[in-house]
């Protein structure tokens, strides 16, 4: 619906169509470069290596979530429950670690819990046939409540150093979270661009009925998207508790909005059938850069909020204009 038919006669040319994803991504990249340029003139040291690494590190959690969100959005759905999913898997992983469970096992359990949460969302969407927005709005409350009930509302403190160093250390001078998310992004890119599952996601989001007749396993495809989203939410929570050294049941508040914003800035269409992994990553970095830059400029909280809102709108307008020119 976003694309008013009045504008429908300015369509992709065939030559460009082949590169349309990368063109769109180039638009996002230009947006990022402009924002960085602006901040670098306003904030001394903004472009220092340390700060750039900082931005990446600070964007990594949102990027991780946004990757899963992108796949769900491409399949024509949405996942509002990523925050509480992260919270459940964080507190359970932390409890397991404290009770002496070996680190790899605890990690697997945490990821498993996240995927189970996603699986429930997927079942409700794909088999019961409910609207994704409503399903995940319902599980948003439900999962959060479960995390709170499980912990009695208390944080789980004292996560072992072994686990923390895994998610909080550096490798070749690059923070682990950044590396982890880079690997995840690469995997997501391969999944979307190179595997049948990726094509199924695009097909289901693009025209569910036609995909069905063509033999695409609709339910399995949708469930896969939610399971991945849940798993990545869990991964994000592991990164976070690695950094914080504690797992809280209220962790992940409002994460869904940031993740959706990153995916949308990166070119995902909430009508399904469209989205870009690279774009999403750039979208997450744009949001992270905004936060970082505004903080370094000591912009007051209310004006930061204003800037966040406006940047989303402006990014989408630039996107619209770029697509219009294509």
């Amino acid at each position: 619906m976003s694309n008013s038919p009045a504008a429908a006669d300015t369509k992709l040319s065939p030559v460009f169509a082949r590169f349309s994803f990368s063109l769109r991504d180039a638009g996002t990249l230009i947006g990022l470069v402009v924002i960085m340029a602006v901040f670098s003139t306003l904030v001394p040291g903004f472009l220092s290596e340390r700060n750039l690494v900082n931005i990446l590190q600070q964007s990594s959690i949102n990027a991780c979530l946004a990757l899963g969100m992108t796949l769900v959005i491409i399949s024509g759905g949405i996942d509002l429950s990523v925050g509480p999913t992260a919270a459940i898997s964080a507190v359970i992983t932390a409890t397991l670690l404290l009770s002496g469970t070996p680190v790899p096992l605890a990690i697997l359990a945490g990821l498993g819990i996240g995927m189970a949460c996603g699986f429930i969302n997927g079942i409700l969407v794909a088999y019961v046939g409910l609207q994704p927005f409503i399903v995940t709005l319902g599980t948003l409350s439900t999962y959060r409540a479960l995390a709170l009930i499980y912990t009695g509302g208390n944080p789980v403190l004292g996560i072992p150093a072994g686990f923390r160093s895994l998610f909080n250390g550096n490798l070749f001078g690059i923070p682990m979270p950044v590396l982890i998310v880079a690997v995840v992004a690469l995997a997501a890119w391969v999944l979307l661009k190179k595997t049948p599952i990726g094509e199924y996601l695009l097909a289901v989001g693009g025209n569910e009925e036609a995909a069905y007749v063509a033999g695409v396993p609709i339910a399995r495809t949708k469930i896969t998207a939610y399971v991945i989203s849940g798993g990545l939410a869990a991964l994000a929570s592991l990164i976070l508790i690695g950094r914080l050294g504690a797992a809280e049941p209220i962790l992940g508040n409002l994460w869904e909005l940031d993740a959706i914003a990153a995916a949308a800035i990166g070119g995902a269409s909430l009508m399904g059938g469209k989205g870009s992994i690279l774009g999403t990553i750039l979208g997450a970095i744009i949001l992270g850069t905004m936060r970082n830059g505004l903080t370094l400029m000591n912009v007051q909280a209310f004006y930061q909020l204003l800037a966040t809102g406006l940047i989303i709108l402006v990014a989408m307008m630039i996107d619209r204009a770029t697509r219009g020119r294509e």
Partner: protein
Amino acid sequence: QELAPLNSDTEKDRMDWSQLEAKLGAFPKLPEGTKAGAVSKTLTNEYWRSLGEGYTKFGDKAGVPVVYQAAQSEGDQLGQLTIAEGLITQGYNVLLVSPQTDANLQPVIEQAKAAGIPVVNVNDAVIPQAEHYVGNVQRDNGVRVAKWFIENRPEGGKVAIVEGQAGVYAAVQRTDGFKATISEGGKFEVVASVPGNWDRQTSYDAATNILQQHPDLIGFYANNDGMALGIVEAVKAAGLQDKVAVFGTDGISDAYTSIKAGELTGTVDSFPVLTGEVALESALRLVAGQKLPRVVATPQALITKDNVARYQGEGVDVRAVLMEDAAAAN
């Protein structure tokens, strides 16, 4: 090197704010170019803006520039972390943090330690690894209100609690302090303890429902003033303003106004401006190399119509009044 997890309410290594000067001497001279960075939960609540006022006030006095930032909304944990990390990057000499949750600023403690920057945890959520904490005793907020009921309503009765956001440290402690204290004599019954989510409208609706079911209720305790003011309206709408006492927490200016107007029965003021001053003073003393106990307790007082004039109004020097209170308590 691992510190025992901090419990700001019970920590033994503590000092009252009124003792700062007495025990540590006059305010020391600071290294040239000292600057302080502070980050709090949100600016949408007057409490945190007043805290910032206190920082600035003391900063001006000591000639130290203070940058005060806050997250975009309460609960924005990663945003707050980003801000705090930014402050470390920018080379502030000391950090004052009021974290969203007990855990979300843990990395700041670690990074600051690595960078040799002291960090003071100011009020509300408590970072277990914090080396320095300045603030009031959260539990005591609830305890004071409960004591008022025990003194002023000797015959007992039904009371209700409207809680803050589920799972938040301050909400849990305040509720717990009230519940435990008021139940001691056996005369009072806590008939409801429901979530108000720091939200006026939610609290209004909750209070309406509770009053309807328990028209003989004698009082409400709310975890903050915004919620208490919502409850006041619900009590008025039910026509029970003479029968039901309503207490809040924080001591924001609207609460004072309401108390003077005879609507809100009382609030536990934790004097955010003074807290800010004390916090920055403690932080700067750390910068100057002084040793401080792990907890510096800041004052609080139950404000009702009877004593409101003592704490607010023309020519009242709150600092002096609180000093007197402190002296009286010792």
